[in-house]
């Protein structure tokens, strides 16, 4: 499946998978930053973190790309210590859930090191975590902890939704960004191909407009940006509705003025996040808009996220656990035309359908 890139295409484009974009930026990160290194469980094995670190150990040697014992907290603490003496560590968690074992170091140390010591020390590093979804990932391989991390001042949290976002943002992060960055990658995206352009205006470490529109604003994260793009295409074709899609992109440092300006224009809002709604991204979007102008919306906003339960493994339940393409389209149509819009919903249910040839293993 090829998902067309979202930016105006003036520069030459090429096709690059999400995993390919990761591999390219990891490679460039090591090449351009002699102090950078990658460590994590399995980074040097034949699978190479789903293809994102493949062959880098051979290319850069075991001092710069190396496997680790199972030690999430220790690994993150080691990264902090290395960063404090001038190195740039990149750590990996093949599931975001495993990063919870490193929360002490991420939250109590890395996020606070600059502030707590009055700015005399910093620990710049990139923590890559991968969110799982579909094929029975279950309760502990599927969590999407963006609001958890973004709650703590001192962390930069990004959720690249396309190959373009990776090739644009990672070079701004690796060896450049002064603090710890948590990048929440999505497993469903890894094998997708995207059009990538060598743009003179790279995607910034904040929000951007992924699709311009006049009728309704969709604020989305990660794989839900793609769901929203497909839904926008559908409502364009079936109902002439033009949805404006904002990829929130940075969860810790979103461009709220951009979001507010869009909602001021459309008056209608759909929030599509990859995690739970409670105390999450959806709640924060509403808080920010409410603070700016409680009268921005013409109707209550629609919110799409995971059901308020741990993720079930059974496919019959998993299928209704995540927001479907049906629900995304329905939410957009309902915002613009009301609940009795009468427009047929798409047959394809969600990204997982587009992904259906994939049979694991993860």
């Amino acid at each position, binding site marked *: 499946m090829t998902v067309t890139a979202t930016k105006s295409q003036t520069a030459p484009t090429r096709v690059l998978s999400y995993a390919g974009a990761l591999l390219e930026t990891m490679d460039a990160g090591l090449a351009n930053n002699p102090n950078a290194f990658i460590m994590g469980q399995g980074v040097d094995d034949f699978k190479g973190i789903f293809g994102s670190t493949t062959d880098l150990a051979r290319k850069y040697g075991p001092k710069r790309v190396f496997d680790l014992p199972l*030690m999430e907290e*220790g690994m993150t*603490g*080691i990264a902090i*210590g*290395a960063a404090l*003496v001038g190195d740039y560590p990149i750590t990996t968690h093949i599931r975001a859930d495993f990063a919870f074992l490193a929360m002490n170091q991420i939250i*109590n140390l890395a996020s606070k090191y600059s502030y*707590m010591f*009055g700015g005399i020390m910093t620990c710049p590093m990139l923590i890559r975590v991968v969110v799982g979804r579909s094929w029975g990932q279950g309760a502990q391989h599927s969590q999407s902890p963006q609001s958890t991390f973004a709650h703590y001042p001192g962390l930069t949290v990004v959720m690249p939704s396309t190959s373009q976002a990776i090739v644009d943002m990672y070079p701004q992060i690796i060896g450049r960004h002064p603090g710890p960055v948590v990048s929440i990658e999505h497993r469903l995206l890894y094998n997708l191909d995207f059009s990538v352009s060598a743009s003179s205006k790279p995607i910034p470490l904040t929000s951007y407009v992924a699709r311009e529109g006049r009728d309704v604003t969709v604020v989305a994260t990660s794989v839900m940006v793609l769901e929203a793009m497909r839904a926008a295409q559908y409502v364009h074709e079936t109902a002439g509705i033009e949805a404006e899609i904002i990829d929130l992109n940075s969860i810790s440092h979103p461009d709220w003025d951009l979001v507010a300006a869009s909602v001021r224009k459309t008056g209608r809002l759909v929030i599509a996040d990859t995690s739970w709604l409670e105390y999450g991204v959806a709640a924060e979007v509403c808080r920010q808009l409410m603070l700016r102008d409680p009268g921005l919306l013409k109707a209550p906003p629609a919110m799409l996220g995971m059901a308020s339960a741990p993720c079930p493994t059974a496919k019959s339940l998993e299928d209704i656990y995540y927001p479907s393409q049906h629900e995304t389209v329905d939410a957009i149509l309902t915002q613009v035309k009301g609940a009795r819009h009468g427009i047929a919903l798409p047959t394809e249910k969600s990204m997982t359908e587009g992904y259906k040839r994939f049979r694991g293993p993860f």
Partner: protein
Amino acid sequence: MIPNDELYRRLFRTSLLIRLVEERIIDLYPSDRIQSPVHLSIGQEAVAVGVCDALRPDDLVFATYRSHGFYIAKGGNLDAMFAELYGRMGGVSKGKAGSMHLSAPDVGLMGSSAVVASSIPHAVGAALSFKRRGTSQIAMAVFGDGATEEGVYHESLNFAALMKVPVLFICEDNGLAVHSYRHVRQSYNLVKHAATFGIASRRLDEGWDMLAVRQATLEAAERVRAGEPFVLEIATARYKEHVGVGDDFHFGYRGQKEIDEWKARDPLLTDKTLLEALRPEIEREIEKAVAFAESSPAPGRSELLTDVI
């Protein structure tokens, strides 16, 4: 031990500085000028002083919230320390760190953490970098006996042994985690435990003896600098309560007798001649630091969000 020996005098002086600084903190504490928890190292000074004296200036130390001793022993500035305790702009960290998070990276004391065991892997990470760059520096993790019960201690030892990084693990064994004795917390012997990772280790019972601590650290550091981790466990004694400036014998959870036995060997209590000889100039130094803190401005609103990245 030769009382007039230059080395002994140097170590004694630094130990006495730590003790008198903390006694000054005890005096000041009721005035509420220091508005933050303090964890005093009175009784444990010889460990910080002996250990730090054995290091090179460019070796790094990662310590704990009981950090006054290591801050001073590694060479941290006294004015900046008192201003930090006071929460003033002249402090090391503009008052944002306080007693529990002292640091002096200019002299090799990195950030002290108030979460037990959490700075141990930082020393391992710094050591990993030293090894990759081929410098001859070593990194030292300082922690209490309670920290060895945390998972990250074991993760750190395993990694250090696997990668052979130049890290020196120093356990200050005061036998207490807050109010709990070690025997109710630990099923292992720390030295034997380190050996299961193939890490060379040693216990020093004479933790009151600055020269013995220094010598043991020199020997350990030499092996570390040659490219292997080392665990050095040093017995010591916490005279004061876990947190705060008071005694805690009257609560009945521990006996005074064991501390009295320790005090009977404490050079800062027994070597009265040297103590009285050095006390006046050290007290002047402390008064100067206190005066600096008193005159340093408190951080204003503009600092509230500064240094959040």
